């Protein structure tokens, strides 16, 4: 019965959600009003994310409230108030200005979930600089390509990550002027200490005038071909961050909130930093990686009321069974939501039966900047569905025509590409330096997501797959091209094709098919060598988990590797009309 809807009739709700009726909220919603719920910079100087997230909550008695509740790996617990976070981020903004870093310059972070990350992000935004987080488990190759494309001027990282992943790239990144190292006393050539720089900087910093259309955030996403794309977001995105926190996560200023996403991905910034602070909530930050018992303990001890996590983690918790969570008091938890890849219906229901709260699946992408579809607190959940569009968002199923136009698929249940009417405030404003790729995402006023979906008769959307070869694994969108390029660096590899292989926990895992150069025989030692190289270059989240050797890879007449055919074979599916595929490219 897992697919039965979960009713939210009034009697079933123990708390009045901030949005009482989805239909009424949709009818009455306007982005102008959502914008008016924010403060704007004093003196009408514009709109700045950091002011909305921190400074406006930092004055007077409410400034003593906790913005962050940081839990260190070693058991340390540190609360940082809104006033402290405002002062620290102002210091970092002053420091950036002192270093000659200005508006539009890119400040990168390569950090785990440590307090310096929040100071860096918010300080960069105050200074009018562009903040770009990198995933700290990336290997040197993804780091180098992203910092080169993003023209990083400043990097904030740790001495360990610097030594392992960045030092060897420094010569190839001429734009990178300053590297600030967090928590290290060992002096490293060409680097400054983060804490001493902060110490020496003034906490008096007035945010310069900020146009809502000024660049603010840069998030990288991989492509099926070519180099990674840097999706640019502007300060106006905070309108969606704040509104969606209330509407989709039912989050308010009294709430203790925990987002488990890594700060290196868009969720970790939009909903791991900006959105919860913009509504004045208290953000639990756990430095450690996923660990079931620790997670239940955090939910219990910190009295987490709103929890935003990911399907892979939920499925790992499910594997451990119901007895572990029953040892903890999870009664503070009011609302649980999920993002990353579609959440299977069993997981939604498991949340209700075992944790006492069903998971509310949400859908959005790096390019959308914020939650676009959701199962809402006040509306019935359809387990397995991504939910319905947020108030203010128009979503549709489209089909691309051969002439480059699109047509609406009106009939419920029919497959097509999930699209959003362009123009919401957190819509990406470009791929850095790639105008043509940006334009290709739009047609006739719609943003085309690349996700295939259908809409049912009640307006709920259901994910079906990707329209391209992108791989969804453990919440990350992985581009096969980047992985294939790293595999090709091994001298024995002639060709590589990379697909997403279905996986019960991670949705998909990266599987590589490799053809070797003439005369080289495949064996276990070579498999390990190639796998080891890929892990070294890319990091474990992006590298293949599995490598298979083939004599040669299926290709189109123009020589393009047919990943779809590799995938069809992997799944044991009929290969379809391959003659069409071969001539189609």
């Amino acid at each position, binding site marked *: 019965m897992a697919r039965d809807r979960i009713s939210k009739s009034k009697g079933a709700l123990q708390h009045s959600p901030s949005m009482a009726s989805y239909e009424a909220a949709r009818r009455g919603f306007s982005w102008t009003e959502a914008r008016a719920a924010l403060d704007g910079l004093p003196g009408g100087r514009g709109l700045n994310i950091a002011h909305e997230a921190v400074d406006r909550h930092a004055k007077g008695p409410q400034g003593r409230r906790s913005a962050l509740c940081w839990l260190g790996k070693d058991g340390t617990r540190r609360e940082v108030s809104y006033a402290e976070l405002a002062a620290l981020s102002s210091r970092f903004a002053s420091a950036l200005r002192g270093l000659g870093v200005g508006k539009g310059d890119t400040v990168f972070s390569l950090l785990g979930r440590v307090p310096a990350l929040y100071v860096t992000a918010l300080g960069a935004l105050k200074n009018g600089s562009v903040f770009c987080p990198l995933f700290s488990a990336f290997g040197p190759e993804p780091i180098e390509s992203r910092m080169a494309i993003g023209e990083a001027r400043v990097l904030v990282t740790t001495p360990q990550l610097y030594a392992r992943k960045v030092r060897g790239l420094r010569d190839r990144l001429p734009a990178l002027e300053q590297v600030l190292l967090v928590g290290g006393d060992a002096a490293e050539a060409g680097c400054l200490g983060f804490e001493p720089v902060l110490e020496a900087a003034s906490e008096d910093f007035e945010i310069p005038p900020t146009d809502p259309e000024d660049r603010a955030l840069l998030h990288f996403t991989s492509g099926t071909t070519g180099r990674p794309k840097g999706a640019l977001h502007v300060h106006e995105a905070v309108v969606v961050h704040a509104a969606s926190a209330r509407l989709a996560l039912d989050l308010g200023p009294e709430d203790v909130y925990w987002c488990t996403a890594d700060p290196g991905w868009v969720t970790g910034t939009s909903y791991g930093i900006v959105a919860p602070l913009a509504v004045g909530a208290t953000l639990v930050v756990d430095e450690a990686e*996923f660990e079931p018992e620790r997670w239940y303990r955090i939910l219990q001890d910190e009295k987490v009321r709103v929890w935003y996590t990911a399907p892979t983690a939920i499925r790992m918790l499910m594997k*451990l069974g119901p007895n572990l969570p029953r040892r903890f008091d999870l009664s503070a938890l009011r609302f649980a939501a999920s993002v990353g890849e579609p959440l299977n219906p069993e997981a939604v229901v498991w949340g209700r039966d075992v944790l006492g709260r069903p998971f509310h699946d949400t859908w959005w992408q790096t390019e959308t900047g914020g939650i676009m579809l959701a199962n809402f607190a006040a509306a019935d959940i359809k387990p397995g569905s991504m939910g319905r569009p947020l108030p203010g968002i128009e979503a549709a199923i489209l089909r691309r025509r051969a002439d480059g136009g699109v047509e609406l698929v009106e009939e419920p249940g029919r497959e097509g590409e999930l699209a959003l009417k362009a123009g919401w405030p957190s819509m990406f404003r470009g791929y850095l330096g790639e105008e043509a790729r940006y334009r290709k995402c739009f047609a006739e006023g719609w943003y085309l997501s690349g996700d295939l979906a259908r809409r049912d008769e009640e307006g709920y959307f259901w994910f079906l797959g990707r329209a391209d070869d992108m791989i969804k694994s*453990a919440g990350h969108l992985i581009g096969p091209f980047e992985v294939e390029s790293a595999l090709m660096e091994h001298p024995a590899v002639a060709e590589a094709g990379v697909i997403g292989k279905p996986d019960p926990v991670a949705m998909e895992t990266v599987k590589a098919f490799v053809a070797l150069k003439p005369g080289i025989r495949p064996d276990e030692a070579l498999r390990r060598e190639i796998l080891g190289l890929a892990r*070294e270059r890319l990091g*474990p989240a992006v590298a293949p988990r599995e490598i298979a050797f083939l004599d040669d890879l299926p290709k189109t007449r123009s020589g393009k590797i047919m990943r779809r055919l590799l995938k069809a074979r992997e799944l044991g599916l009929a290969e379809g009309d391959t003659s069409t595929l071969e001539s189609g490219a």
Partner: protein
Amino acid sequence: MSEAEIEAMVLEVLAQVAPNVDAASLDPEVAFRDQIEFDSLDFLNFVIALGERSGIKISEIDYPKLASLRGCVGYLTAQQPAAAG
């Protein structure tokens, strides 16, 4: 199996999943993920492969006990059928 044999088996399985790891530099007391690039999916693959290789059924609730080299050796040693010891 002796402890030394079990340790060799654990390292062999680790090398299947993460061949770029230098086994000699591992601190046996420290969790794998705190000293090498080893994420939670790696860990899951590692534990499943360890169960297959050792023939010991590893209950999911015991997974946290296998977080470090010392933890793996201790756990697998204790779980061995007595006759085989």
